[in-house]
């Protein structure tokens, strides 16, 4: 509605993984405050195309805050200045006319840059493949209501399961630790009776894979929780540690 912004953008440009990148500066004008951040980048990109330049590559898909694909590090914070919001749901009304905005990719050695703002997050898939599941083949299930689950446990499991796998926790962490992501899945399944059976094995396998991918250790700064767009709690890390230590204690 009201208000159009003129902005200076400093955006990380990197042609591919094997060459060095650098910041490029762009001006955009007449940006509606109703636009999302990604729509603002769309405006820039269409202009770059018309001018014969290569547009800025960035990951995005659902643009409604749930797929976890968008991943911009804006003014030093994953997904920008607002709490509980992914980049695609960040709107330009959160910025001031005349502002300079710095945009970078997620930075972590386990998330190598593919191009510009696009990084490779397949390490997360491998962590899930290591143990982020209940081993139940299709067709094995009993009637769903044969297994009552206290509402509090179900709610806690849901809160942990709300993780969208975007990687903001890793990007926010000075150690590039993936503890919040990994613990959310371990927690969700450990809270439910279906997941209890394999809880120990799961915690060990997922933590081992997390380490193998090159994510850093946790030093309890809490930056991951503060920057998580889905409010995944640090309690999950505590729960994971309990699961992990009891697993290693009993298995060795």
């Amino acid at each position, binding site marked *: 509605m009201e208000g159009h912004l003129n902005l200076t953008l400093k955006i990380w440009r990197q042609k*591919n993984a094997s060459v060095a990148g650098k910041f490029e500066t762009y001006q955009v004008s007449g940006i*509606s405050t*109703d*636009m999302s951040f990604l*729509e603002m980048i*769309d405006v820039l990109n*269409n202009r770059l*195309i*018309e001018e*014969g*330049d*290569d*547009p800025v590559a960035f*990951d995005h*898909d*659902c*643009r*409604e805050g*749930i*797929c*976890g694909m968008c991943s911009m590090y804006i003014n030093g914070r994953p997904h920008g200045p607002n709490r*509980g919001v992914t980049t695609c*749901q960040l*709107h330009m*009304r959160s910025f001031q006319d005349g502002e300079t905005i710095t945009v970078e990719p997620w930075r972590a050695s386990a998330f190598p840059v*593919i*191009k510009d703002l696009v990084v*490779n*997050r*397949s390490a*997360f*898939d491998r962590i*899930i*493949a290591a143990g*982020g*599941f*209940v081993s*139940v*083949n*299709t*067709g*094995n*299930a*009993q009637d*769903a*209501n044969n297994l*009552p*689950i*206290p*509402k509090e446990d*179900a*709610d806690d*499991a*849901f809160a942990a*399961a*709300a993780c969208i*796998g975007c990687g903001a926790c890793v990007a926010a962490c000075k150690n590039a630790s993936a503890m919040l992501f990994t613990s959310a899945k371990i927690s*969700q399944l450990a809270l*439910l009776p*279906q997941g209890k059976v394999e809880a120990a094995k799961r915690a060990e396998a997922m933590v081992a894979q997390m380490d193998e991918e090159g994510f850093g250790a946790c030093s309890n700064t809490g930056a991951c929780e503060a920057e998580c767009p889905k409010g995944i709690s640090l309690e999950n890390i505590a729960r994971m540690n309990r699961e992990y230590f009891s697993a290693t204690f009993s298995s060795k």
Partner: protein
Amino acid sequence: MTKLDAKIPEGSLAEKWTKYRSSVPLVNPANKRSLEIVIVGSGLAGASAAASLAELGYKVKVFCFQDSPRRAHSIAAQGGINAAKNYQNDGDSVYRLFYDTIKGGDYRAREANVHRLAEVSGNIIDQCVAQGVPFAREYGGLLSNRSFGGTQVQRTFYAAGQTGQQLLLGAYSSLQRQVGMGNVKMYTRHEMLDVVTIDGKARGIIARDSVTGALERHFGHAVLLCTGGYGNVFYLSTNAMGSNVTAAWKAHKKGAFFANPCYTQIHPTCIPVSGDHQSKLTLMSESLRNDGRIWVPKKQNDTRKANEIPEDERDYYLERRYPAFGNLVPRDIASRAAKERCDAGYGVGASKMAVYLDYAAAIVRYGKGEANKNNMHNPSDEEIQAMGKAVVKEKYGNLFDMYKQITGEDPYEVPMRIYPAVHYTMGGLWVDYNLMTTVPGLYALGEANFSDHGANRLGASALMQGLADGYFVIPYTIGNYLASEIRTPAMSTDSEDFVAAEKAVRDRLETLMNIKGSKPVDYFHKRLGKIMWDECGMARSEKGLKASIKEIQALQKEFWSDVKIPGEIDNLNPELEKAGRVADFLELGELMCIDALDRNESCGGHFRTEYQTEDGEALRDDENYAYVAAWEYEKQSKFKLHKEELKYENIKIAQRSYK
């Protein structure tokens, strides 16, 4: 003229699937290990099929264009998943879910498929719970249900407003388990660009690695397309930015018939367009119509704020027109009713193209309920408001947050503004009872096929269908085909057919890159979207459709002579990917208009202005149009119609009424 054979099993409706399962040919475990299956798409249908088939022992390859299978757009489904569990003891049954789905689809779906869907619906809930999907529960620890449009029972299972996310993550975890065990090979950031057929059978695909631009050939004894819907032909829709028709369209050009392309679902409750910059539209779950009341002012062009308009000056038009179902009429009806009010000058908001979805009454109702539960005898208005808002927050909190994030308005305090938007496509590749297309060995699952929703899909049925197809249908029906393939060894991808298919893909990419025109891809996509929305959207007419077909043909020519694609062919190039998809949308859009023009009736989401009752309801013509329109691709702009007659042996076909 080929005769379409849906291969529906003999026997009474309720026994068809049971008998089929008991008599379908089986593939023994040793043979399964040497049979390879290519699956394109990793949403509910693709991930569930991949996991289930790999568990059975088949060698599976899965392809998705996103960076992880967990990104597939099933993730965004909000409201819930239907199942005929009858946990609420409110009269639900397999037959009633079947009946509601056929009726909701305005009597344009195939009875046998829909009955099978209803039969397996309960197994889906069991399976998901076993995987650890955290559905909403009551204090007693049992699963909670809510209502959805077009039904009078509570059969919808949900996980707040993130049901699709939780179901997809369940299927994804099963898929990743198989990846970890080495039974599935996953190809992310890969886009399928053609189906390879050998001697008339689907034998693999050509895929492009989006990161390197390299083209790859992949063999499969069978190919499953689980690639979702094509709502993005309208440019603006609730689909993800990357959702596209390319896989289905390539299959269509290789001989798979495309069924009922014009059946599009316009969802009634979406956040309205805010300006030209709009890149996509956001859905507000239909579950909000459980508790929210939809209204517009009784006065035209009323400029007062919503909260300043007194109760008796509000027109709750759905409750007025459809007292039996009220705010829970099916989507097509709710959408048309909103359009009717806005077109008549009663719309709200800056654009006047919106109606209100109001939670004030629900907040008070829930607040009073909580007061009773807590033995508060004289609660103050503030207490009622606070407790009511807390209940609403628990049920719909993430949706309310999302609304506030996008619009800057607080829906706990002022009614939401909503307007219909393109959401789902009931049309898709024609499949038989086995989910096989008209190309042997090529299957379509989930939204990519046409089979279960007729001319209008009921809410919470898409998740049900995607998972039914993947978990419980394809593992049986694919045996019917693969049992006769056990003597076919894996084929070399150096064969003439693979090489030729790859060359055709490369030529097309090079042609696109070499146009070097003056307009970005989005320019053409937006223009196509506007034509489709204006003339093939909520209301369609002979005159408009005929003009649109000409306009789209002209736009196709313009695209192929003036599109400008930057970057390189052998590097990550999102514009090149988009260009290929828009080129396919331009052809699909034409077919959608041709199909809408052929169907001289109104049914479900297809509303032809020439065919309506006196009070503006859709007027079906069962005498002449009770068929599935399956289109065969002949050449550019030339499609041949094949008809599959729909026979209703168990349901008496009737005028759909929600009054």
